[in-house]
């Protein structure tokens, strides 16, 4: 790429042309890095932002049917980007003794469809790919790889079931 006529006689000495070529490459690399790093940060930024949610009321313990996963829906305020919106989330609450409760998301662990309780069959069904879960959310049949996700909850003094906003 370098013209032989432009080379210096001393092969060890940096020629003007070589100096310029190296300078251009160095400056180019500097600009590339100083812009490339912020660009990556800029693009992945939404994935880095986390929202700390408060506790929301799901329902009363007395509303939970004994031995049947009972679906509760709750509206959660969510800020996505610059848009504030209300999102409906649904959770199964399950109890066998009205003392110990299990709260789990109704989002299927396969590919994120919403599951529901199938009264006749006695299982939780995901309609998308025929995934079956038992009353505790364990997989009985179909493609789901994991049990339904358990959700952290607390029961307050007035017997309200509270869950943490996700």
């Amino acid at each position, binding site marked *: *790429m370098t013209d032989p006529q432009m080379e210096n006689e001393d092969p060890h000495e940096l020629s003007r042309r070589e100096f310029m070529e190296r300078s251009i490459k160095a400056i180019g690399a500097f600009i590339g890095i100083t812009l490339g790093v912020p660009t990556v940060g*800029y693009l992945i*930024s939404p994935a880095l*932002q986390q929202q700390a949610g408060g506790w929301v009321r799901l329902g009363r313990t007395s509303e939970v049917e004994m031995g049947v996963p009972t679906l509760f829906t709750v509206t959660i305020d969510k800020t996505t*980007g610059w848009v504030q919106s209300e999102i409906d989330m649904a959770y199964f609450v399950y109890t066998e003794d009205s003392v110990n409760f299990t709260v789990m998301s109704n989002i299927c662990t396969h590919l994120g469809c919403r599951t529901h309780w199938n009264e006749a069959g006695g299982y939780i069904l995901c309609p998308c790919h025929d995934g079956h879960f038992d009353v505790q959310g364990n997989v009985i049949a179909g493609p789901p790889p994991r049990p339904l996700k358990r959700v952290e909850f607390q029961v307050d003094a007035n017997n309200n079931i509270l869950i943490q906003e996700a």
Partner: protein
Amino acid sequence: MGLGQWLNERTGINDVYRVVLARKIPKTGWAYTLGSATLFLMVNQIVTGILLSIYYVPTPDHAWDSVNYIQNEVLFGWLIRGLHHFGASAMVILVGLHMIRVVIYGAYKYPREVTWITGVLLLIITMAFGFTGYLLPWDQKAYWATTVGTQFVGTTPVVGDWMLNVVRGGPDLSAVTLARFFGTHVWVLPAALLTVVGIHLFLVIRLGISNPPWKKNQPQLPRDETEPSA
């Protein structure tokens, strides 16, 4: 060198490098770098503009909020938007200086008239970029600047009102105005810019750059020297 040779054998990339980047030019001065500087800023505007479009939404209920989100919430959003914002001003200034250099040095003369004409088109395209981009943040300054700027169109005799309606997409500034300014800014103008820049640069390389006026008596570089020899 294996890959380079493989590629060169099939594409002639080394000749392209020699003709485009390692071409010989007369001894000139810093004034001759203004075109390259403008080109550099153009690349900056394209890259940062594409990045802004990742978050920006061109509707009245989202435009300002999305820009505010870029500026204050997105990591390095202030930097990307700042580069686009100030790069735009710098580009208008550099395009002007570049043109003044060409005028003073008489570089528009034969055989470079077509280079000059495409350059004037690029000046107009750059100004159109600035005008349409100014509205996009949809803040008070943008809104009223575009109100005034489009009002000029309305003063055209006979067809003024009709043209104003075309530019605004209605009698007043609205969602339609914002959408068409956005579409113009990110699709129409870039397509025009890249086409005309392509012609402009092809001519610069084909014709070589002009000698400075104080070297009038020196012969220009023979055309052969810029031709690929292999």
